[in-house]
């Protein structure tokens, strides 16, 4: 604050106003700086700490109680399986739900409004609550046990609202003239959706699905609840016990030995590479196929 002028004073008003504006803008740039600075420090710190432990052993070896011999192959494989399961379940269900809500549902009906609010709410339910659901219903309730499939189903439920919301936005962005054109040519409703609306919204749906997938792959809390166990010395199968990469990182973090802390950082690098490259693909897709109607 430079000039101390009486309020309303014309002489002092201009520079003071100028300075106030500059300081305000600086403050906002400061906000950006804190956010991005933390991100940069986090990435650099993880990279520097984890780099020495990032080895072929880590990628291909089996877990061990000795830090030097520990690897994360079962965890990495399980994470890839989980990702595949999430895509397999969440994309069809999410897209069909989005089509229903955008193209078919009559919003005058209370049950359709309820489905909408319900999905908005599910999107904000803490991930660990899904873990409790998984523990009660999937693992112990129907007795599937602590297997990869159970983890995949729970992660699917966690990210389903994300897929639905993204797909709805993509479908909504298709202009009505396209639909009316197709109807005018005698297409049925499903033909309009299947041959016109859906193809036009694929880039948006793909972007949203990849973002959802990246979230699922990094999710830890629900997997802890549905029993991604600590020590798995074999490759996972669909109906077998497993541990996922984020859970493995968490378990290494808990070890007091500093070597395991380094391993945790190395695991974090692998996880970050997987997650951030998915995000990069999503951002690329969005920019590449942004359609102007």
């Amino acid at each position, binding site marked *: 604050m430079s000039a101390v002028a009486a309020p309303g004073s014309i002489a002092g008003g201009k520079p003071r106003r100028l300075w106030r*504006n500059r300081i305000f803008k600086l403050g906002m740039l400061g906000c950006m700086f804190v956010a991005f600075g933390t991100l940069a420090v986090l990435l650099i*710190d*993880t990279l520097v*700490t984890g780099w020495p432990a990032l080895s072929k052993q880590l990628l291909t070896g089996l877990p061990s109680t000795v830090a030097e011999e520990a690897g994360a192959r079962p965890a990495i494989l399980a994470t890839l399986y989980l990702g595949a399961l999430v895509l397999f379940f969440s994309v069809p269900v999410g897209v069909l739900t989005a089509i229903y809500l955008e193209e078919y549902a009559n919003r005058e009906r209370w049950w359709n409004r309820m489905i909408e609010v319900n*999905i908005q709410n599910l999107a904000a*339910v803490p991930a660990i609550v899904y873990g409790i659901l998984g523990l009660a219903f999937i693992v112990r309730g129907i007795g599937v046990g602590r297997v990869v499939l159970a983890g995949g189903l729970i992660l699917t439920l966690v990210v389903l609202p994300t897929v639905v919301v993204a797909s709805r936005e993509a479908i909504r962005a298709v202009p009505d003239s396209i639909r009316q054109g197709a109807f005018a040519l005698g297409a049925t409703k*499903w033909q309009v959706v299947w041959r016109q609306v859906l193809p036009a919204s694929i880039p948006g749906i793909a972007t949203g699905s990849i973002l959802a997938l990246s979230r699922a792959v*990094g999710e830890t809390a629900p997997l802890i609840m549905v029993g991604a166990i600590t020590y798995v010395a074999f490759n996972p199968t669909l109906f077998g016990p497993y541990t996922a990469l984020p859970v493995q990182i968490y378990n290494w973090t808990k070890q007091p030995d500093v070597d395991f802390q380094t391993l945790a*950082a190395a695991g974090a690098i692998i996880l970050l590479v997987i*997650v951030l490259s998915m995000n990069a693909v999503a951002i690329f897709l969005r920019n590449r196929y942004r359609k102007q109607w």
Partner: protein
Amino acid sequence: MTTADASVARPTTTALPRKKIRWGEQIVHLVLFVAAAISVLTTVGIVLSLVLPALDFFREVSPVDFFTGTTWAPLFLDAKFGVVPLVVGTFVISFWSALVAFPLGLGVAIYLSEYAPPRATSFLKPILEILAAIPTVVLGYFALTFVTPFLRDQLNVQVEIFNALSASLVLGVMLIPTVATLSEDAMAAVPRELRDGGYALGADKLQVSTKIVVPAAISGIIAAFVLAFSRAVGETMIVLIAAGQLAQITFDPRETIETITAFIGATGNGDVPTGSIEYKTIFAVGLTLFVITLVMNLISIRLVRKYREVYE
């Protein structure tokens, strides 16, 4: 008269014969509805999986003791089930992370919405997305192994090894994208005419931003705050790793605490036998968490709808 009536009515009846029911279309409609119903079933599943074991729990522990008790020691021989320390821990974390995330997130939103040139926005937004995409287990690790030592050694803040402050700071930064994106959406919905009106009256950019755009978008901004707070309440990994597992009633963020989510994560992790009181505790505490976040989410959804109704 009757012949005239018939001649008017006939063309419509012959031109449009009775609508043929297309069974394929009906089946498609049904399949779509079933897909949409899965989300409702999920909610029902969540509620049932929480409420049934929680009722079992409350048969053994009186709800009054649970909600007013100030000692949380469910795994001890002389078990005490007072949830207050966990709730306090949760709100301490949420409060401090909100203190970080609200002003910073709002600042980022104002910058993106009012100040940033389009070219800057096109690369700043993806960076925000990347920040939002960092897995929470990595953030927790960062809080424990970088922020806590940094606070102790560089800033001379006497914090415990596991402390609420580090967890809150990192959680706060994690929530900046949530606050910023939702607030910016609300600000983008403010019509240009309002801004132009302000400029026409001689307001500068600062005044237009803070006295016109922010108030006009306030319901959306509050919705963003509420949602971010709800996410702070529900966040598990950062607090589990960095804030510790010592359930105590303290408002000092430098101390070790335990949140609701950290308790669930730490207890669900072990092999708790089904049907034991420890096992049921997870659900009673989980139900508490679910109700807290549900209320906040519904408030947030309602607020978002409000600003959408005003401007769209």
